[in-house]
């Protein structure tokens, strides 16, 4: 792909936004969430002690769960992709020992122009649900693609 124009972004938005392109189940082992919490520096018992009545995974644990693919099939290659950031929204605690389902869609596509040229940002969102279908959390991954010169 050559120089990116606004129409490329608009077409990508029309074609790809808000359509689930991946679904995956995740087992949440307690020993893994405890170690995750410990390495992050958490000291609260609700993240470290399985006997705690509110035992739960640390809030950003879902950011470590990846779907089978990060972008939809046939998504245009605007340039070299780099990890630009992560976002997490928490609605209900993720309980260790359960299995959750993650469904991925492209939540946003936008561009910014900086000193080094134009960059395209794609935000992939995984929505996580428990076995009862309750929406637990969202995890956003922001990928920045620099225009090929």
């Amino acid at each position: 792909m050559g120089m990116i124009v606004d129409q490329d972004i608009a077409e990508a938005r029309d074609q790809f936004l808000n359509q689930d392109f991946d679904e995956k189940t995740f087992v949440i082992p307690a020993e893994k969430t405890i170690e995750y919490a410990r390495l992050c520096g958490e000291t609260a018992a609700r993240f470290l002690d399985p006997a705690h009545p509110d035992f739960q995974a640390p809030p950003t644990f879902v950011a470590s769960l990846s779907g089978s693919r990060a972008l939809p099939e046939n998504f245009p290659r605007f340039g070299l992709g780099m990890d630009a950031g992560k976002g997490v929204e928490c609605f209900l605690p993720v309980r260790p020992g359960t299995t959750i389902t993650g469904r991925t869609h492209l939540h946003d596509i936008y561009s910014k122009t900086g000193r080094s040229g134009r960059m395209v940002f794609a935000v992939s969102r995984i929505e996580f649900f428990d076995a009862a279908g309750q929406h637990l959390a969202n995890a956003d991954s922001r990928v920045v693609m620099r225009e090929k010169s």
Partner: protein
Amino acid sequence: MAISTIQEVVFGEDLPTFIPDTSLAIASQFAKLVGWGGPRFTDHEGARKEGLPGAMVPGILNQGYLVAMIHHWAPDAEIKAIDTVFRAPVIADEKHTISGVVTDVNEEDGQVEIDLTVSNEKGETRVFGTATVQLPLG
């Protein structure tokens, strides 16, 4: 002193500075835990061969540090949302400091917003983010 309720929070206050353990040992253990093996998180020399200045702390571990900092400040805080921008690599075995400042306080619903920054010893911002946090109403 740890924060227990929203009434104890003052707009503009700084959270106590948090020094995360950014050692290579922790970065490496974390990377392996989440399935991100490879020299860029586990081995300085191997990372340099990939063109990096050294082994990095995984981005999501930096995000985890930010949340841990909030929990050290307010142990009962519930994270509602956190958005993190990875501006530059956090190099393992280099000392980093996390600072945070309260930028909004809503005493009616108990939510606060906190701006958070991970800086290296040169004072350069490596990671920054914003968290929305629910505190007990008291």
